């Protein structure tokens, strides 16, 4: 039996909502299911902001969350009520049965449940108090209840609780007790919904990672030497994870005084031959733009991870958006070509992170890896490769021995990449500079030299479009001619794939092409895909249609835009409405 169940847990900040979601997704992944999960929470650490943890549990690969949830847990009434509507018919709504605060008419969850939904009133507070003497473990009670009600094995939960509360004294014991109390109640409850977990897939050895954790893992597996960063939501957790792991490997990480220093130190380290990276969000990338230009001019490798959030300016720091495509590709002054990669799922974050180091070294340029808050914080079960799929050294070899007086750091070569002498190499002394220079690196402002060097800096990147063992773009769905083709990038690709499956069910010929390498742009492949489409739809989470602009500029062909800036991931149903509309037009044309 296929399993495809979405659970939403809803509560106030500080009620353990996100923690409950975390234990649930890890336990279910531990049990062998595939999980995709994304939490929404307010900017405040404490207080009364609403938190929602959502996870979709499947046996087949899923690409995004679903429109409707199968199970909703309300840890409090106020925040739960707006979400009752998202539960499908015959789905389950679990809520506090014995509220101790006075609730006015209409402010209790029970009053909002539709007849077709199945209510499960649960004495959450009371069970927690009876089990542990405190109300703090309410989130564990509901986890136990879910496990009991849906006949899930207890063991994966117990394992995660042990790991999570290791060394926290009585907390582990209390949480086990609360979980057991909930479990017994759940197991004894007469189940009326039709939410059923089938057995998990066989032999799925997956780990649960979010995008930022996958980036950190990719950095480590690619042998990162140095990391320099400045905290900023939603990129900070990349640095936090590396701060734990890099010293264990003898590597150095430094929190700098600002983003300008972060990119400057990264480029300084890159100049010595070390694999170095930094991570930031849009505001930080704006500050880094000038130094990235130096990295391009001086041909020094560096890797910059950028997790986008709502902008411009400080914008909406805890909401997702895809509005930094322009600054990533074009940001900065002058003709400043660079490599920009945009992973589309958590596994892609791992691969792009590792490959970014290869490319930075191979093409001697900054590489920007563009995530967004949704992808940074989205959890997915990822099957890791047996050994890291990254090359440890991609530097173009320099001649052995003393390089001597004739060494040309920026010499013109067939592939426009010049062998790079690193500080410490005998005879390789040279100066790199942000000024236009000749092959030796000496300042030269002659018209011919500026043209030749500009061409070198641009043309050397063309080879990146054939960089080995990397998915630059990929087509999914129907072969040949289609009614509607969707061109997508970044975190939105998951929703687009779900839309494609829906379109197929409705008899619409549909294909999706995801583009991972945004710069240099795979123009030919994208144009070939567009040739196959009666209509091309470009859904993205920005107001301007930045990816649509890029496609139109590169291919000279029109596209249909669909832009949302709600701060939340794109809704599958919204994109689907666009596909239906375009499919009708396409059919009319054909007739």
């Amino acid at each position, binding site marked *: 039996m296929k399993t495809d169940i979405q659970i939403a847990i809803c509560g106030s900040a500080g009620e353990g909502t996100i923690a409950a979601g975390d234990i649930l997704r890890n336990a279910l992944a531990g049990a062998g299911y595939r999980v995709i999960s994304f939490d929404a929470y307010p900017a405040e650490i404490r207080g009364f902001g609403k938190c929602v943890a959502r996870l979709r549990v499947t046996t087949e690969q899923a690409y995004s969350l679903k429109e409707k949830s199968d199970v909703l847990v309300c840890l409090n009434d106020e925040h739960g009520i707006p979400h009752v509507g998202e539960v499908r018919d015959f789905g389950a709504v679990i809520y506090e049965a014995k509220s101790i605060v006075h609730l006015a008419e209409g402010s209790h969850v029970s009053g909002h449940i539709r007849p077709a939904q199945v209510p499960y009133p649960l004495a959450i507070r009371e069970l927690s108090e009876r089990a542990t003497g405190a109300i703090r473990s309410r989130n564990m009670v509901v986890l136990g209840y879910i496990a009991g009600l849906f006949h899930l094995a207890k063991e994966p939960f117990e394992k995660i609780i042990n790991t999570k509360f290791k060394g926290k004294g009585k907390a582990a014991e209390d949480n086990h007790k609360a979980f057991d109390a909930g479990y017994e109640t759940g197991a004894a409850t007469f189940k009326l919904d039709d939410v059923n977990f089938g057995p998990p897939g066989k032999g799925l050895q997956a780990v649960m990672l979010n995008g930022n954790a996958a980036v950190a893992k990719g950095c480590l597996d690619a042998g990162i030497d140095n990391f320099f960063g400045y905290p900023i939501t939603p990129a900070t957790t990349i640095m936090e994870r590396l701060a734990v792991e890099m010293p264990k490997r003898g590597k150095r990480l*430094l929190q700098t005084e600002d983003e300008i220093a972060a990119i400057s130190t990264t480029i300084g*380290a890159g100049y*010595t031959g070390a694999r170095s990276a930094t991570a930031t969000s849009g505001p930080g990338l704006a500050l880094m733009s000038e130094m990235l230009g130096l990295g391009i001019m001086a041909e020094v490798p560096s890797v910059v991870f950028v997790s986008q959030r709502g902008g411009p300016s400080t914008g909406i720091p805890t909401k997702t958006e895809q509005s930094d495509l322009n600054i990533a590709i074009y940001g900065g002054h002058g003709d400043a070509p660079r490599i920009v990669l945009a992973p589309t799922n958590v596994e892609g974050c791992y691969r792009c992170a590792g490959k970014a180091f290869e490319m930075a070294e191979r093409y001697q340029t900054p590489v920007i890896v563009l995530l967004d808050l949704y992808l940074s914080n989205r959890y997915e079960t990822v099957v890791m490769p047996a050994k890291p799929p990254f090359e440890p050294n991609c530097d173009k070899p320099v001649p052995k021995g003393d390089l001597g007086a004739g060494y040309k750091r920026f010499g013109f070569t067939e592939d426009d990449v010049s062998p790079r002498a690193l500080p410490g190499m005998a005879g390789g002394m040279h100066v790199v500079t942000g000024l236009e220079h000749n092959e030796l690196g000496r300042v030269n402002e002659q018209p011919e030299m500026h043209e030749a060097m500009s061409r070198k800096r641009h043309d050397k990147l063309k080879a990146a479009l054939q960089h080995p063992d990397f998915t630059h773009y990929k087509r999914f769905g129907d072969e040949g001619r289609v009614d509607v083709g969707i061109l997508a990038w970044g975190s939105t690709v998951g929703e687009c794939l779900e839309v494609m499956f829906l379109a197929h069910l409705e008899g619409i010929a549909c294909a999706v092409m995801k583009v991972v390498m945004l710069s240099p742009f795979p123009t030919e492949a994208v144009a070939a895909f567009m040739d196959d489409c009666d209509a091309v739809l470009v859904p993205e989470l920005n107001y301007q249609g930045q990816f649509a602009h890029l496609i139109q500029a590169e291919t000279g062909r029109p596209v249909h835009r669909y832009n949302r800036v709600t701060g939340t991931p794109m809704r599958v149903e919204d994109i689907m409405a666009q596909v239906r509309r375009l499919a009708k037009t396409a059919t009319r044309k054909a007739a």
Partner: protein
Amino acid sequence: MTPQPIYLEEKLKEVQESGRLAYRSKSMPTWCPGCGYFSIVDGLPGALNDLGIAPKDAVVVSGIGCSSRFPFFVNTYGFHTLHGRVLPVATGIKTANDALTVIAVGGDGDGFAIGGGHVPHAARRNVDLTYLLFDNGIYGLTKGQTSPTSSVGFKTPTSPYENPDQPLNPLLMVLTYGATWVGQAYAGRPQQLETMIKQAIAHRGFSYLHILSPCVTFDKTDRTYVRLGDLVRDLPANHDKGDLGAALHLAMDTATPALGVFYETQRPTLADALDGLVEKAGGSVGQKRRTA
């Protein structure tokens, strides 16, 4: 002091035999004749040569400005970076490869106007590098505008009536930021300058050498050789360079700048601290070096 006569052939032979020419680049400095910076570009090769640091093991990093053209005029590895960013780039280089001798150079505008936010952090982290600050109190490369160390009342194209701003006191700032070696030299005393560059490089930790220098082209009135030469004085004979309070008092006297080592102390460098983290995490110390 009676000037000693110099016989060109003898001097040339002496310089050629000293080995310091190996540190000079084939590119000749682009500075104006008479610029104070010539004594610095003469001093650094001598200092590196005396310390036995091979050209391949030294990296000279600079920002933007007249002084920041410096890397082109020495035969070491060099990184001519952006306006104000010399210290973070130098920090990145040193953090990635301990074996390199890193010398950061730049002017008063580069270091204390646009780059002022980086100085405290390089100092407090005690990054093991040497910062040579060429202070001429002017923006020379853009043809003579006011800098953060220009005197009040100084007239330039951007302050045609007069400079209304108080000058910064870089020495006082760097001392309070936690630099572990702080000194002042004068371009008009090249031998002392060379000795002090040598001491600054030999120091383990963040060393800051403030070098007073005239801009002969754009400043005909304030910091000329004649005026500076009259004002500068030797350190008081009883100055204790281990005494931060005494060093602060010296730095506060901007009317008659003292020349010499103001302050010197030892504490763990950034590299020591980062190695300490590696040990705490249970890793083994030893940066992977990808250099030859």
